[in-house]
């Protein structure tokens, strides 16, 4: 992915596993993971909303952990395994969290949605959220300007329900 016109600019050789496929890259060190995904790799499901780590639209899973891909230089991830929204499911084979988002109308414009879903999938796996209030708190890095928050919380609760990770507080009530 190095800029052919600028042979004098520094490049690094790395390898990444992206959605299960190991790939080798020659990159400028200043390329963020987000710009790598959205640019040369054409994996545009990962969104750019601020480029400053403020909105969460670019959330992807790196070795299972949710991160803002706009804040990560791709060359710092040599060897890592990255799952993007495209790796979670496809229109004809949706991930349970993706299905729950459709069912609960947990979006409107859909732009923050891939980030919300990646974040939610990691949230469930982390296992820290035990109540709806905790879901809200731990999802607060993902902004939704259309205001689908209550529906997103419903979708996450449903997935936790079906996986028997019922929020303790509500279950007790």
């Amino acid at each position, binding site marked *: 992915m190095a*800029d052919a016109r600028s042979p004098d600019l520094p490049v690094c050789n790395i390898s990444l596993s992206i959605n299960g496929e190991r790939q080798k890259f020659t990159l400028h060190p200043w390329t963020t993971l987000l*710009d790598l995904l959205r640019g040369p790799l054409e994996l545009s499901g990962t969104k*750019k909303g*601020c480029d400053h780590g403020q909105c969460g639209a670019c959330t992807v899973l790196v070795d299972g952990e949710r991160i803002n891909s706009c804040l990560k230089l791709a060359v710092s991830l040599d060897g890592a395994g990255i799952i993007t929204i495209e790796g979670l499911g496809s229109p004809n084979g949706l991930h349970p969290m*993706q299905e729950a988002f*459709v069912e609960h109308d947990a979006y409107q414009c*859909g732009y923050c949605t891939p980030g919300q879903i990646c974040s939610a999938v990691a949230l469930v796996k982390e296992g820290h959220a035990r109540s709806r209030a905790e879901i809200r708190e731990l999802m607060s890095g993902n*902004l939704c300007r259309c205001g689908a928050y209550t529906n997103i919380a419903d979708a996450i609760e449903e997935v936790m329900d079906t996986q028997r990770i019922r929020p303790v507080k509500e279950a007790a009530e």
Partner: protein
Amino acid sequence: MLNPSKVVGVPTARIDGPLKVSGCAPYAAEHYEPFMLFGYVLPATIATGRILAIDATDAERFGGVIKVYTHENRPDTAWRDSKWKDEVALPGHPLRPLESDRILFDGQPVAFVVAETFEAARDAAALIKIHYAAARPHTDLRNELSNRYAPPVPRMKQLVPPPPRGDAEKAFKEAPHRISSDYEMSGEYHNPMELFATTVLWKKDGELTIHDKTQGSQNSHEYICQVFGLDPDKVVVKNAFVGGAFGQALRPKHQLFFAVMASLDLKRSIKAEMSRREMFYLTWRPSSFQTVSLAADEEGRLTAVMHDAVHATSRYEDYQENVANWSALAYKCDNVKISYEIAKLDVSTPGDMRAPGAATGVTALETAMDELAYVCGIDPLELRVKNFAHRDQMQDKEFTSKALHACFREGAARFGWSRRSLEPRSMREGHELIGWGMASGIWEATMSPAEANVRLSGDGKVTVSAAASDIGTGTYTILAQLSADAFDIPLRDVTVRIAESTLPKTGVQGGSWTAASTGSAVQAASKAVIATLLKHAQKLETSPLAKAKVEQVEIADGRLVLEANHQIGMPVSEIMERAGLSGIEEHAKVGPDMMTMRKFAAYTHSAVFVEVRVDVELGVVRVTRVVSAIAAGRILNPKTARSQILGGVVMGIGSALHEEGMVDHRTGRIMNHNIAEYHVPAHADIEDIDVIFVDEDDDKASPIGVKGLGEIGIVGVAAAVSNAIFHATGKRIRSFPITLDKILTERTDQ
């Protein structure tokens, strides 16, 4: 002709949902071509003045840079102002990017860098050196109030204040109960999650395919063709997916201009995506000052309503919105005086943002109504019921429908309003004061002219086409639902083609009119298809429908049948086959019914109830419960409709508590141009929101009974929150957003 609903009115998941949740829905910046170029805008760092010198040498030499455009080398464009006026342009002179050395607002684009990579364009932009002569900026509306003026050229006649009714000043002086309060509202920024972006795909024969973030592909198309003198047949604009807009994408933005300019100049495909910072330099909800004076008789009946509003505009255009006229029609009152003016600042032109005007004006009116309720010692809901307007006194017209009583009743019941004590500061739990507030909302229900094509194929499948947009509103889905019902077919057998400039003419998506307008066009075209089908059926020998009239037939289960007796009819496929047709396509055009609108006024209404909890020591406000009851005619899809109201409520909470554009008036520059410092509601800020759609039959607002939902959800929300804060704390805060510093320093009113 519309069959009893099978899909319409049923909560239906979005048909574009699977694409959105899997990242397969391409937005404006997500279209690719090998060897595409990237553009990056450099914003000005002064608010007013001139560029004395601009040096782009280092940027031009930077690796990967193709060209740097400034006002010194910008290609020629249209000269006449009229060519720059888009479909929803304002009185004044539209901004022409890189037109001259003049700077009119902070962040105005001063250079456009084109490079082979995004990073090269971005980094090279930082190397451009500009020497400015900055003039003293005037950006504080408070200091410019003496320069306020009534807009000499009205944007549209509905925005002009109505003539005074009765004698409001005299009635105010004589009334036993009265309040007069000043309200201040901060400027707000839409900040849809998707950044403004345009991808221009250039072809050798000069044809352009443009993917633009816009609320109207045809508006962008016409603008580009006029500005650059292009053959309209050689340009296609598409907006298949729009990552939110809320009004910000009604008018074409500078990235569209730049991307097309560079593409034509360099004969290459190019992508230009704004930074989040740039999203603060264009189209915002203007800061405003308002005074509302209300008077009532002993029983709490309004005897005087006076509403005065002034808001900001730019040096180069007169932005106008309906802030105060709502006060002339929301309640029954015989003495009304409305005034509305604007004042010029060194800022970019404001623009429509969700419920433009109403989101600020009704907030002031509804907070004032709460204040009046306390002066009269009457429950705030009761005061509104007492002053219910059964007729639009402003236009002297009947309402097409107004189920606001049902909103009051059902909303109050769901919320538990009857258990409220009038007295402020009367509920407390631990370290939190609890308050309950309510407000009413109103927005106009309009139709805009719209066209659509509907095609029925021999296999029973249907394709709908119109140049409408879906900015997250659910247009794809409701058009599919309407067609599915019209032809009695499953949703999956409908193909919805929208979001492209070549399709049947549709206005921009704004003002809550898309469902009523394009929905009605689709229904009309569907009827025309069935009428044509019947004609063909009747030409056939031994047609069982030989004597049937078009009003008597419908399609059911793949057959054209008599409504009254489904036994009589013929399979659609047989009619088509015997008539030698592969399909039937019809076009329809709809618009507002002028005869009806002469007698009737159409509005959506709401009642919103809010519970807040305010930390006694820290002043932190939590909105713990909201019930929003909406009267908006027929609801096509309760699932997506509910989402629109949720979104309005959330943005209303932002307006009440969080959203504040901060300008350093010494430099005239926006200080918090990012979404960490410009606060919008996050997950943690939003707790329970309950949405009720009350029954409201309306056969006049639009042919399909729809009134629109995009705006009404936000109207009144900020007032209900502020009224709840008063109920919790006894502090009446009239400056929005109500941040905790204001709560801590405000004295208790009671």
